[in-house]
């Protein structure tokens, strides 16, 4: 037995070696490299570069471009995230309701999820075509009499931002339904039965049982959505001219980083500093939310009851 234990020790590491090497070379090193580059004035064109300390970061904050990109990204992400979770939560409650007994839940879910798998670049190009001046949306609106003449939709800040938000929502609400339903069905039914015996209303059961027990899953959805949202690129890039038009209203963090990178001189140093700033911002938010919310309970008013619920879930999850 002792020999077996001894032999097991190196084997575990053996299995992990490709991952660790891959991570160090292709995960960690590029991050450090980006950090290093962000302190230099490196360009694509020149092989010499200077260490210029925080000049890149200073110039980022000097003009409004960077702040605007960060603001755009947060705005678009939040406007998509709130209805995404709201609608997904509502539908999940309907789908799991014992009273409504909705039919063919699997098919509904599968159809709502479909947009998630489509190529974001192609989806954005599709919406660009649909909302073009001679596109189907204009044709429909004019023929049906909703508008007197065709509109240049993609030159309106409201419409373009709205479209990015809509596409993001369209692509992700189905996935959120699947995750939320998986969480809801793992809640022991006895909790609801007990609450019903006590005369709890549907809303009370949702508020006091479903929501608290879904917390870990909601945090998971929140964090993964945030990390994805802060790196949003394909959709705003392909929807208009690739610079976040009109008036840079859909210019996100990553589009700005790409524009610095692909500018005529190829400012790698400056582009890196954009990456570093957004990286820090996102990582701090994501990990902060994850660790601060993970093990704490919601509210502190009725500790005894919650304790018993918690025990139940631990049992059901293990």
């Amino acid at each position, binding site marked *: 037995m002792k020999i077996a234990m001894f032999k*097991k020790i190196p084997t575990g590491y053996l299995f992990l070696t490709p991952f660790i090497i891959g*991570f160090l070379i292709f995960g960690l090193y590029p991050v*450090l490299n980006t950090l290093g580059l962000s302190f230099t004035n490196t360009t694509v064109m020149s092989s010499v570069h200077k260490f210029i300390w925080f000049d890149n970061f200073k110039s980022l904050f000097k003009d409004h471009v960077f702040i605007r990109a960060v603001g755009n990204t947060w705005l678009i992400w939040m406007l998509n995230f709130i209805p995404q979770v709201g609608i997904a939560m509502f539908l999940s409650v309907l789908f799991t309701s014992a009273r409504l007994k909705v039919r063919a839940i699997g098919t509904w879910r599968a159809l709502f999820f479909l947009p998630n798998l489509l*190529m974001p670049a192609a989806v954005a190009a*599709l919406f660009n075509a649909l909302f073009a001046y001679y596109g189907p949306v204009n044709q429909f609106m004019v*023929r049906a009499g909703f508008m007197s003449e065709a509109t240049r939709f993609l030159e309106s800040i409201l419409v373009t931002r709205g479209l990015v938000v809509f596409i993001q929502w369209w692509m992700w609400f189905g996935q959120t339904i699947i995750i939320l339903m998986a*969480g809801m069905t793992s809640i022991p039914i006895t909790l609801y039965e007990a609450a019903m015996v006590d005369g709890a209303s549907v809303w009370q059961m949702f508020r006091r049982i479903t929501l608290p027990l879904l917390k870990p899953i909601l945090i998971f*959805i929140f964090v993964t959505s945030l990390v994805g949202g802060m790196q949003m690129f394909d959709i705003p890039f392909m929807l208009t001219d690739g610079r976040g038009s009109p008036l840079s209203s859909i210019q996100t963090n990553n589009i700005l980083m790409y524009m610095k990178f692909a500018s005529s001189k190829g400012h790698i140093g400056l582009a890196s500093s954009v990456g570093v700033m957004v990286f820090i911002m996102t990582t701090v938010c994501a990990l902060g939310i994850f660790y601060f919310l993970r093990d704490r309970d919601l509210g502190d008013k009725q500790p005894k009851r919650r304790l018993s619920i918690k025990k139940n879930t631990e049992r059901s999850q293990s």
Partner: protein
Amino acid sequence: MINKYKFSTYVMRFFVYVLLFFLLIVTIIPIWLLIVNATRSTTEIQQGLSILPSSHMIENYNILIGRGLNLPRGFANSLFLAIASTVVTVYFSLLTAYGLVVYQFRGRKLISNFIIVLVMIPLQLSIIGFYRFMSKIGLTDNYLSLILPLLANAGAVFFGKQYFESMLIQDLIDAARIDGASELGIFHLVMLPLAVPGAATLGIFAFVASWNNFFNAFILITSLQKYTLPMLVQTMRGDVYRTEYGAIYLGLAITIVPIIIIYAIFSRYIVSGIALGAVKE
């Protein structure tokens, strides 16, 4: 009392189905318009909206190809890259996950937690440093720069770990050991064949992720010969196709329809895979 309850249930059910049908139309209509318009000529598209397909697909395809867009080549590139990415992701993620689940060693818990942290870190933002690194070792404009990072795919390892934890049969491993199989041999000959359903789910996600990947390829790949489909979609926005609506829709449909077909076949795996990847933390 009971009847009233029943009646209100029926009313609620009616409104629920109305809502579901509305959402279904919202979900499907952009995709449907895309496929329909891909079969209509540019003149037809300009004349008005239709929800029924026409017969100009071949014509559109000829316009698309005739203006210098090498779509078959892009399709082959995307397919090759997606298959290579899938193989690397599935094999190495399951290898890592298996190592984490089966063996006891110092730092196991730490690495497991670290992988969860990695899932939450926006590594794409280090693309500039990655690009610089790749250009130094001569791997820009090479598919290896898109495949090698998948050796350490945290999300896939996390999924694989969940999967092995739900299925692992310690007795089988012990039996194989008694029969004299090596540890790697057990993984390859006993566990991998057993893990086929999980590997399939993981593989579909890896395939779709690679097929749809635009940003990294856009930065790392430069020669037209190596362009993947999303990069060709990007070039399609140029002036050459400005007024060829039918051809543009067809080009987009060609990138999207293969994924819809894959989904139609494997949707069960995909939906269950998402739930497995998220629940249980």
